[in-house]
């Protein structure tokens, strides 16, 4: 990450870094046929680069939105995203089925997405 030079093309750099990072991980993914083709990957990466400011604003807004969540919901997100426990275990420890946990997470994320939209609209700079 420290090797990133903001003056260079992000796309080329990201592709280079990602390529090397990913290279070691994908050897045993050869069975996985569920991949986007290169054309779509490049398109998404190109658009992501163009929207890097928006992306940063979104994640800053997300931080504020997460602060508005209840403690329980924040704890739930932390458990699910830290990868220290499997989704099944998180569900079990919360007395939920795996499906119910996914639904709960989806509702929280939807709420967060709406909050982010609202925050950005209020700030006036973004749709």
């Amino acid at each position, binding site marked *: *990450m420290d090797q990133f030079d*903001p003056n260079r093309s*992000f796309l080329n750099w*990201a592709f280079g*870094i*990602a*390529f090397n990072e*990913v*290279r*070691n*991980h*994908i*050897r*045993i*993914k*050869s*069975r*996985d*046929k*569920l*991949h*986007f*083709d*290169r*054309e*779509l*990957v490049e*398109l*998404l*990466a190109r*658009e*992501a680069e163009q929207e*890097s400011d928006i*992306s*940063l604003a*979104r*994640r800053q807004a*997300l*931080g504020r939105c*997460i602060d508005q969540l209840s403690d*329980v919901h924040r*704890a*739930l*997100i*932390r*458990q*699910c*995203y*830290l990868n*220290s*426990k499997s*989704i*099944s*275990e998180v569900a079990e420890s919360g007395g939920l089925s795996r499906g119910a946990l996914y639904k709960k997470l*989806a509702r929280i*994320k*939807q709420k*967060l*997405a709406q909050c*982010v939209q609202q925050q950005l609209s209020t700030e006036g700079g973004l749709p």
Partner: protein
Amino acid sequence: MTHDELRQLIALYVSGEIGLEQHTMLEHELKNNPDSRTLFRELIDLEIGLSEWSRESASQIEMPEAARSPDDKVQLGRQSDLETEKAGQTSSTNAKKTAFGLVALAATLLVAALTTWAIFNSNPEDTTTQAQGQKAIANETEALGTIRQSNCVWKTSSGESQNRADKIKVGKYELVSGVAQLWFDSGSHLTLQGPCELIVDSIASATLMNGSIVVNVSELSDGFLLATPESSIVDLGTEYGVTINETSTEVHVFDGSVVWQPNGSEQEDFTTIAIGEASRFQREAPKVGRRVTFGQRNFVRNLEAEVQRNAKGDLIAFDGFENVAGKLRRGRSGFGWNGGWHPPGRRKKMGQVIDAPGDEVFGVKRKGQKLLELQGDTALLRALQSPILVGDGEENSSELFVSFVLERIEDNATEVSRGSDDSFFKFGLISPESSGRRHGSDNSQSQISFGVTSQSTPFAKSGMRVADAAVKLRDTPMLFVAQISKNGQDQFQVRVRIYEKGESRDAFVPKHWTVTLSNATSTSLSNLTHVRLESGKNGCWQIDHLCIGKSWASVTSPN
């Protein structure tokens, strides 16, 4: 595609649970709709943001009492690592943070895109390196998945114990007896057949020290590295069995292929073992393998272990015909048998194992599975591991249950029509006196049989007595469940319930049966040793999921 549908597809993509068809739809939508790509980026940003926030907050925010569980100690115990990592990142600029998120996005996408590249450039050594890397990040308290087990005896530090904790953790597993399945959250699962000694190294790797296991790597898994003391076995989309004893290691590949890599060897020493192949390696010289007969080892495979588990010990014999090599005689499919299927006489043809349709019938999911087809003048016999003793004294079960999925197939090749003469199907149970082969003739006569007549009506038969029903069965998959029970001195009854596709199975022994044969007299029912399947010369039948058990539930529980 509606907004909600797109959100749902993206959620499945993010969770890694997206199916092939859904993936194709998502890809098409993203390629052709800029708004959908915008939503995709928004949601990926959300995922990245939540992931970053979770890591950062883990070291800063006290978990509320209400949300804390004993397991949270594991999670909080990792904070020191996170803090160290975070401390090293505090000097990062916003630009770098942005770049991190975008790299994460690019990496997510590139993982998928570069897969194609990897297929053509893959080097098994790198796979090993990656999987070994996964060993390093596992810790002893982290739960890596769940254990499914039934009547297993494990050896632990305090002696032997019945079953054990149902969470997989890094460490040693010594299964003394029984069959257990280790379902890893990484998408792979291992079936252990006792006695077996295995060391779990990480969520995606383990070392087999002794005994037999079957490794099943699902398509969503990133792979599983199985090591032995002398080698590593790298899967390439696979189900395979490994057995290791004091002198040698055998690898049998049921699906996909594997690469055998002796420790400290060069790439030229690697051996690829493909579907339907098996190799044996001497432990003293693991670089050189020798081809052995596929299926020689009697591995308990995934499906069969599942069936056994569901049957709670009441299943006597089972055959799902999951014989990848299609060799019925070898007898490696199913359990509860002594040897394979063979024709009872020279004139009878063998059936053939073919791919099952990718449907689900009567709770049996058949995608990727096999079934047995009997076409023309076909008959097959298979010996049971132990004679079945029905209602013969207190020690023996007073009831016997048999079930299978059956479908009549129109044989286009020979232009045989449905319902033509001599197109019956018969399932029979045979005693020793009638199962022998003399001079190539078929002398095996069933003591009890049931099935479908050429006119598509169900029947049951025992000795000279026959019962049928005025019901015309349709040419769709049917579930046959038969009950054979004693109802008097030397008298038995045979009752058959036939379910058609879409019909719900009874949870318990039903009150109403399709065919009932009462007061059948037979002196040989206390010693049934073989099963016989037979098709008339104009018949074409597909049979699957054959179960023989002591209870209704044991033969009607789906896999």
